C-alpha cells in the first residue's frame, strides 16, 4: 500500500481561535468556509516567508537560512499580503 504523504497545515481550531481572539467585537464570528480559506492563506504566508528567505540565503551563498535573510525579504512579503 502506498504511503499517503501527510499534508502539513494549521489545525482548523487553531485558525479559528487565533483569528477570533483578535476580533474587536464580541458579536463577530468566523464562518466555517472562511476558516478553511484562512487556513490556506496562513499556510501560503508561511511558505512564502520561508521560501523567499531560503532563496535569499541561496543568493548570498549561505549554508543556513539566517534571520538576516528573513529580514531582507520581510518588507516585500508584507506588501504582497
Amino acid at each position: 500500500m502506498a504511503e499517503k504523504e501527510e499534508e502539513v497545515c494549521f489545525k482548523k481550531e487553531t485558525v479559528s481561535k487565533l483569528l477570533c481572539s483578535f476580533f474587536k467585537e464580541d458579536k463577530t464570528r468566523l464562518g466555517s468556509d472562511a476558516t478553511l480559506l484562512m487556513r490556506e492563506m496562513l499556510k501560503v504566508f508561511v511558505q512564502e516567508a520561508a521560501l523567499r528567505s531560503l532563496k535569499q540565503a541561496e543568493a548570498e551563498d549561505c549554508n543556513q537560512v539566517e534571520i538576516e535573510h528573513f529580514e531582507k525579504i520581510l518588507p516585500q512579503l508584507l506588501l504582497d499580503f
Partner: protein
Amino acid sequence: MYRYFLLTKKETRQRLKAAVHYTVGRLCQKIEEEHRREFSRQTIAAIAETTFRECDIFAKDLEAFARHAKRSTVSAEDVKLLARRSRALSNHIQNKSEELAQEQRESRKKSTVKRKSRETEEESRE
C-alpha cells in the same frame, strides 16, 4: 476545592503562539527537506512571530469587511478581499475557494445518497 479551568487571556495567547510555532516549524521542515538547506531556530521563531502578528491584521481587516457588508459573520468573500494585493495570491485563494465548495457539494451528495438508500431499505422491510 474549586479549580479554575478557564485560561487567562495571557495563557490562551501563549498556547496559540505555541500552536503557530509548531506548525510553522513543520512547514519549514518540509521546505528544508525539499531544498536541502536548514533554517536557523531564530529564523523559524521570527517567521512564527510574524505570522502570529499578521493574524491580528488579518482579523481586523476581515472584521471590517464583514461589518462593511452589514454582516457579523466573516465569509469566504471577505477572505478573498483580504488576498487582493497580489494577483497570484488572489488567484490561488479563488481556486482554493472553488475547490472547497466542490468538496462540500460532493460530500452533501454522498450523505443524500446514504440517507436515501437507508430509507429504501427501511421501506422494503416493512
